């Protein structure tokens, strides 16, 4: 067992902090994942869905006018063009296919704003697997359209009325469901978080982003970029684009949500900058950096971008931050909004507010020189879902 335990961690982070009932399911999942992750047939089928269904490869676009405005050569990795409007589908197709290979009859998931839920619904429909998504009751009201999208695709959306009726309650409820139905059900986690093997598996499924960038930037520049910048909620789009460059001489910037400021109280943080300010802890099955009070109670986090609004972060990012391989940084709500408008106006691309945090960091850091000459920004998703929010800001 010592051997297996070893591989569940990234340094001291990661692991499997889950109820006993789930351990066999995690073992089964790990086993299947290890079996299929390098399997030729599995990967061929996954590649097929990524290409023909999801629309990969996504372009690497040279943002000429934005480059001029910010004073550094900027390439945008266009995950906004992936089916469903975000990188999330890369992961749900991978896990969905694995669930199919495992013979699971049912997929469950949690969702906050509905991006991951929508991606699950898409994968569920494609693979013909029954899908149910837990969503905080408050979120179902705020994100009515995403609920409807999921329902159209045959997914059952279950409003969670306990606790704060938001994402964390949805996670709790999904975990409970998994505990109760572990034999027939695959729990589809939406980021590089949760117990092993999820952080590793989701990273691998998302690595298609970075692999494409390797080829694309070589074609365009004949060399790797000086830096890569990605927004970081759970950290899946970041790990997806970072991982294939881990061994390369490329600086990696994980941009968290600075919210309305770096303050915290005993109960809540005005931000979601977990890598920047979180402390070592255990949440949702993993040891990682966590926004918590002195007793270890988890704080309510905050961000204008629902997808970044999370009190934890993927354990591998926590590890990479500790060893100095990536630089944690953050952009505030107001900075993200400015970057959002820049990209709309200069490039005709409406980015997700999540992705706008990455753009915002380049906006302020380009002049310092720390990003080098060529920077790749991961545009993790499109911003159509955020129009209402941005419109509200205007008033």
């Amino acid at each position, binding site marked *: 067992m010592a051997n297996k335990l070893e591989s569940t961690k990234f340094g001291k982070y990661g692991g*499997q902090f889950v109820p*006993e009932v789930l351990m*066999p399911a995690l073992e089964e999942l790990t086993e299947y994942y290890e079996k299929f992750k390098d399997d030729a047939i599995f990967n061929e089928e996954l590649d097929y869905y990524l290409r023909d269904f999801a629309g990969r490869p996504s372009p690497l676009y040279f943002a000429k006018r934005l480059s001029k405005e910010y004073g550094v050569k900027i390439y945008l990795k266009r995950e906004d063009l992936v089916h469903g409007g975000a990188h999330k589908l890369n992961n749900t197709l991978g896990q969905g296919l694995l669930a199919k290979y495992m013979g699971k009859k049912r997929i469950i998931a949690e969702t906050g704003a509905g991006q991951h839920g929508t991606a699950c619904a898409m994968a569920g429909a494609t693979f013909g697997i029954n899908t149910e998504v837990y969503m905080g009751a408050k979120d179902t009201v705020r994100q009515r359209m995403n609920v409807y999208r999921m329902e159209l695709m045959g997914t059952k959306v279950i409003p969670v009325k306990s606790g704060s009726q938001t994402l964390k309650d949805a996670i709790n409820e999904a975990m409970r469901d998994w505990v*109760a139905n572990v034999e027939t059900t695959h729990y589809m986690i939406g980021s590089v978080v949760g117990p092993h093997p999820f952080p590793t598996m989701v990273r691998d499924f998302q690595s298609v982003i970075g692999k494409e960038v390797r080829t694309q930037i070589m074609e365009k520049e004949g060399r790797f970029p000086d830096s890569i910048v990605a927004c970081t909620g759970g950290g899946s789009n970041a790990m997806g684009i970072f991982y294939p460059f881990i061994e390369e001489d490329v600086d990696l910037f994980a941009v968290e949500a600075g919210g309305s400021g770096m303050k915290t109280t005993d109960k809540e943080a005005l931000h979601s900058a977990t890598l920047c300010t979180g402390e070592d802890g255990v949440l*949702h099955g993993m040891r990682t950096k966590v926004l918590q009070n002195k007793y270890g*109670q988890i704080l309510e986090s905050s961000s204008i971008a629902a997808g970044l609004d999370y009190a934890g972060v993927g354990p591998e990012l926590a590890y990479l931050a500790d060893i100095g391989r990536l630089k944690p940084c953050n952009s505030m709500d107001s900075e993200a909004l400015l970057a959002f408008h820049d990209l709309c106006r200069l490039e005709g691309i409406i980015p997700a507010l999540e992705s706008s945090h990455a753009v915002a960091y380049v906006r302020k850091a380009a002049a310092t020189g720390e990003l080098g000459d060529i920077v790749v920004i991961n545009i993790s998703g499109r911003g159509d879902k955020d129009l209402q929010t941005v419109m509200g800001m205007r008033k």
Partner: protein
Amino acid sequence: MRISEKFRQLKGRKEGALIAYICAGDPTPAATKEYVTALVRGGVDIIELGLPFSDPVADGPTIQAGIQRALEGGMTPDIFFRTINSLKLHIPIVVMTYYNLIFKRGLEKFAKDCAASGISGIIVPDLPPEESDELLQACKENDIDLIYLVAPTTTKERMDRILAEGTGFIYLVARLGVTGVRSDVAASTGELIKRVKTNTPKAVGFGISNGQQAARIIRAGADGVIVGSAFVDIIAKGEDVAARLEALARELKEGAEVAIN
């Protein structure tokens, strides 16, 4: 009092143990003292007190609500240990909490605080044996039992490890799913009791709410029953709480006694 001693006592008396869970601080620290007293009067053998955590993934809505009331009532680990310390019970007390609160306090300090305040055992629902080496060490050094859970899904290999490491009692999860009152006893419960071959006492929890169920479980070979949501329900209703806790405890204890005879 050590847990093992309690079970030895009960064995001598041919009684099944009744382990009662409530969440410390639900709805106030003062209330917990009153409710614990009532439970002990009702015949509870071991008190399991929840130290409330903000994200209790292994608990069902009933207990989650109790945890929320406790947090809103101001319960913290510091107050928790002070409250326990003031209880002075003559039966074992077990703390049930999530790992982050232990981790954050420091494993050593947490175990010491337990020992100092009269706690005999720790249950951590999100800490499987794979992750528990350090806490186990701290518990041993402080003469505290680390109580492990086994589930119907637990494989033979894992079961062996858990039985080798667990002390105090083995917490048998009666069914897949989270805590909460159910109207039936799952067939799988009997099977699980048979599968768990150990000299450590076996207590079955999750979903037990009345004397009949308790009796059936003890009859099936368990050494004790753990009841939580049914008590927390009474606290949630908030009417005549102490008396009704005592009455339910009595009913359950009678079920557990009758069963062995």
